């Protein structure tokens, strides 16, 4: 039997669906992280390793979002997305690591090429 979002005609069903198919599978990993993290000591090698793994994971998310975007960002050519990213990062370094300058520069490049 296939139980989908639209298969039970009751007001509460979509909420139960979101809870079981969205919230629970995300929060289980968070709870697991709490139990794993309680065993970690401050400034230990183990903590540094876990932090490196988490950082690399987020870095992987970032490059996937830029290289293989879903939705309307995919309409912008790959070369444009890459050059906007690189120019944004250069501006970020030149401005002594100002996040705002980096983000605004990258967006300015992307938008100016898409709009004009």
């Amino acid at each position: 039997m296939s139980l989908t979002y639209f298969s039970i005609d009751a007001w509460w069903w979509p909420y139960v669906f979101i809870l079981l198919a969205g919230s629970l599978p995300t929060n289980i990993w968070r709870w697991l992280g709490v139990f794993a993290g309680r065993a970690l000591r401050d400034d230990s090698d183990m903590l540094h390793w876990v932090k490196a793994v988490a950082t690399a994971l987020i870095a992987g998310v970032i490059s996937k979002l830029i290289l293989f975007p879903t939705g309307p960002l995919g309409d912008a050519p790959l070369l444009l997305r890459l050059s906007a990213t690189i120019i944004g990062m250069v501006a970020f370094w030149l401005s002594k690591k100002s996040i705002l300058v980096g983000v605004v520069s990258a967006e300015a490049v992307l938008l100016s090429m898409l709009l004009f």
Partner: protein
Amino acid sequence: MDSQPPESFPASNDAREPESRLVWYWRGVRGIVSVPAFILMLSFVGFGAFAREAGMSMSEAAFSTAIVWALPSQVVLAGSIAAGTSLGLVAIAVALASVRMTPMVAAWVPIVRGPHSTRLSLVLMSHFVAITAWIVSMNRLPSIPREGRGPFFVGFGSSLTICNTGITVLSFMLAGELSEVWRGALLFLTPIYFLTSLTAAAKLRSDQFAMLLGLILGPLIYLTGVQLDLLWTGLLAGTLAFFLAKALEKRKRV
């Protein structure tokens, strides 16, 4: 709690005053008037519109922001709802998209915990951990006295979640008003913001290597088509970075 806060913490004397935890809570709340929070809110503008296209109602979309609180998971959820996927398969897809939470939360616990933390309070607080709150935690919590870290995080995390639930409602109502170009530009904010803020937060040599290796290996591993590609990226690039930093440190000492 088994861990004691470091004795040498400069501001920890203030913590004996009962109001100081409340003060830190409010500082956390005020933290949402910041560049990271603003950028995350703009990124959420796209979600309400997407949820509407997927066939969710406004309150269902808002509910999912509040209770899932992870943009990639929510995108997978809404996409699967639109495709008419069955509950079990949606749950598996969402779980695969959010494995990153475990190492993130594990690294966050030793930073955020204080003398008042219990297992239950950490489990409840961990709901607010997502990439933005994680980066802000790693950046700001170490300079806050132990006693204030939990309250600061709860103030920041809960206000951010509430604001974005509101943004979801707003963008649901405004869906269709924004052109494709602007929606693309809003989606571009997320990776650029993560890239700059994570670079700014990576102060340890091992984190800087992890960042660089993750950026390169992430897409390569994805292209191989293996399951759980992000988890493998994290484990491989993170472990490599950790040992690389260790080796470099050793060479310097010799």
